[in-house]
């Protein structure tokens, strides 16, 4: 769907198009088809785009009754005006359903699409096409998709008022439309996806939180399609942001190994929360399919009640020996680049894994590589017990302005870290 090339010269040139050159789908369906000698042939019932040939050109027009339909190819068209299509020849063939055709009326009108520029799900009210003159004959190219009041008005008044009157009245209404290059269809059927050149790649480029919002607005089949096709890491990031109830239904709908692949890439605490809400057989099945290391991380967390510190923490953090130098700590981060994204503190432990101190990452910038870490640490490291209540955790975060709070057991062994984003998220769900 849409131009893979993105901002090509052709796109740039068409950002503003003379209204006279536009034909709306509501006008096109029902438009007269005339033969070269002026013979009446029928009325257009459907317009088909073949994305494999051309991203926006209407490749064929269908006419006839509901039982037998006939097809006119784009190169058989001589001219297109606001109420008439004149053909250059009158040879037409019966139409057989063809999966590589995107039928504008059936597949696009009234359906949900993703506006990748506006980052939201919209419902199509109308489609605007523009007349392009090439090789001495007219073609119709999909221009933009109407999702606002103007399109709705055309749908309502079509067939009741003459086209000219509709066009005159509609200019008073806001025209809310999305250029075709930003329209992304979500197609659950993988075969059709291939034939219609629909890809979800551009959804994967959105911010995970935006993608999560989009996914929440779609139907289950479309959600599944997106999570089937996205890169695992992207899918994991987005899944973390999705509403827990919808998370569960998405994971339900996926194959177990696909689900495991995605859960593996999630932060262990988010993964544990997710598996916690799944039925036992599902969560166990997914854990079995997961690689050993991430599965162990998640299993460790899953044992805790989500309302205590142990259930809020993640076990993905950086702890080094209390004798380590700055260079050694930096080396550890380089070994696991994913850590660098969210790292705020490095935790120092003794030989029994007991928490000694926490070093804010920023302080590493002030020191040379061969210096020991310990002098950089806060003297009095705030910590919380594994079984402390959620409210206690929130209190500590507030009082000590924490970014990351280490979680320890009764003898002081470091088990995990609660990060500020989890606290904010939990506060938000509480207040709802």
């Amino acid at each position, binding site marked *: 769907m849409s131009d893979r090339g993105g901002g090509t010269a052709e796109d740039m040139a068409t950002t503003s198009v003379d209204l006279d050159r536009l034909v709306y789908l509501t006008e096109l369906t029902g438009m007269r088809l005339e033969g070269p000698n002026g013979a009446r042939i029928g009325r257009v019932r459907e317009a088909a785009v073949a994305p494999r040939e051309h991203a926006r050109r209407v490749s064929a027009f269908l006419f006839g009754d509901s039982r037998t339909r006939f097809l006119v190819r784009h190169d058989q068209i001589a001219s297109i005006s606001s109420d008439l299509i004149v053909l250059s020849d009158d040879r037409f063939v019966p139409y057989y359903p063809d999966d590589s055709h995107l039928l504008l009326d059936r597949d696009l009108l009234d359906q949900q699409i993703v506006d990748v520029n506006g980052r939201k799900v919209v419902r199509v009210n109308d489609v605007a096409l523009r007349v392009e003159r090439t090789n001495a004959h007219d073609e119709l190219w999909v221009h933009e998709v109407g999702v606002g009041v103007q399109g*709705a008005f055309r*749908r*309502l008044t079509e067939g009741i008022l003459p086209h000219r009157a509709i066009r005159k009245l509609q200019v008073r209404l806001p025209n809310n439309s999305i250029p075709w290059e930003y329209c992304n269809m979500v197609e659950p059927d993988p075969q059709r996806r291939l034939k219609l050149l629909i890809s979800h790649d551009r959804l994967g480029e959105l911010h995970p939180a935006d993608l999560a919002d989009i996914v929440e607005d779609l139907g289950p089949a479309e959600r599944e399609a997106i999570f089937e096709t996205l890169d695992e890491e992207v899918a994991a990031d987005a899944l973390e942001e999705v509403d827990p*109830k919808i998370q569960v239904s998405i994971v*339900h709908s996926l194959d177990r190994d696909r689900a495991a692949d995605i859960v593996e890439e999630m932060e262990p605490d988010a993964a544990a929360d997710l598996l916690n809400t799944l039925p*036992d057989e599902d969560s166990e099945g997914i854990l079995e399919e997961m690689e050993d290391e991430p599965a162990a991380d998640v299993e460790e967390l899953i044992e805790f*009640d989500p309302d205590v510190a142990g259930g809020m923490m993640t076990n993905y953090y950086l702890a080094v020996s209390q004798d380590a130098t700055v260079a050694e700590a930096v080396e550890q981060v380089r070994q696991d680049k994913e850590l660098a994204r969210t790292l705020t503190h490095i935790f120092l432990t003794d030989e029994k894994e007991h928490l000694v101190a926490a070093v804010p990452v920023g302080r590493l910038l002030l020191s040379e590589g061969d210096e020991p870490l310990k002098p950089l640490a806060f003297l009095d490291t705030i910590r919380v017990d594994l079984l402390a209540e959620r409210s206690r955790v929130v209190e500590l975060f507030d009082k000590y302005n924490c970014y990351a709070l280490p979680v320890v057991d009764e003898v002081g062994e470091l088990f995990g870290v609660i990060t500020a984003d989890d606290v904010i998220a939990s506060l938000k769900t509480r207040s*709802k």
Partner: protein
Amino acid sequence: MALFRKLRRNVALFFAVLGPGFITAMVDNDAGGIFTYSEAGARWGYTPLWTLIPITLALIVAQEMSARMGAVTGKGLSDLIREEFGFRMTFGVMAVLVVVNLANVMANFAGVAGSLELFGVSRYISAPIGAALVWLLVVKGTYNSVEKIFLVASSFYVAYVIAAVMVQPDWEAALQATVTPVLDFEGAYLAMLVGLVGTSVAPWMQFYLQAAIVEKGIDAKQYKRSRVEVIVGCVVMSIIAFFIIVASAGAIWEQGPRSIEDASEAAMALRPLGEYAYILFSGGLLFASLFAASILPLSTSYTVCEGLGFESGVDRRFKEAPAFYWLYTSLIVVGTGLVLIPGVPLVRMILLSQVLNGILLPVILIFTLKLINRKDLMGKWVNSPIYNLIAWTTVAVMIVLSLALAFLSM
């Protein structure tokens, strides 16, 4: 730890599933419903009780289909109508739905005002406060917790059972009437029948239930639980309706059959029979009205915005979803406003809303049946032939009754 986890999850599941179906059925006994049942009992005594059994069946059939469609397709009813039947049809349905539901909202604010007037609170105080409460409820975004409160407080409906017992009706006659169908082609009797059906199976419920199932994330696998819940909800709703009719028959009809003007009048009639029966009846009315007044405007706004493709949802800000918030606010403001204008014929408007309900319902049910029998949409969850027979019969009866009522009220 594992045991605790399991227990907690089960409790959570219970609340997650015990929600939409049950609440929908409970809200069904709103101010309009209580009025219709009281009126039926006051004027016709125990005779109308037999209708409750077929009504329960029709209600279960209608609601079960909505719930199933929600669980299988994961889409709201207005979304499906839009995708399958196009914009114009959706627009028409939504326009009628807004009018019908506005009348329903008004009826419920009238219920709030009427019940509190029995306790000496002027409607010029109670209705605006009620409206403000309802509005804040959504804008403050605490709907989820309120839903739980409602669920627990659904037990308030027991008030009607106790009130009925206090009235000391003729139980034998009541039970007898429940299993004795009486058809009478007198206009007023027919109108009462249609009213009973119309108030029990309402179009907005079909939209609300399906949307709520979708919103809860219930899928086809968990659907069986929802079906049980729908059935339980419908049966409980009918049992409560039974006791309302019985209470009103015992208190009014047995003293001399007459018509009543609104539900609070039925409560008044209970007064000589005991102060508590009276308080229970009017308390129940207040509660039911507030309940419905909270859910109706919200459900309407969601349904309409989704069908027509406007941004919707209380988690969006006003600027992001202006149509949603405007519609929601207008429904409440206009609904309350109408109650406060002196001389507005409230009873006539409530009756009119029920006629519109009855006209819209067959349309919605026909859409539902067409959608639910589509294999590409529902897969193996399409209706069985027997189920279709029951459902189509329900629709046919509804159409005949609605036409009859429309004819009668002209």
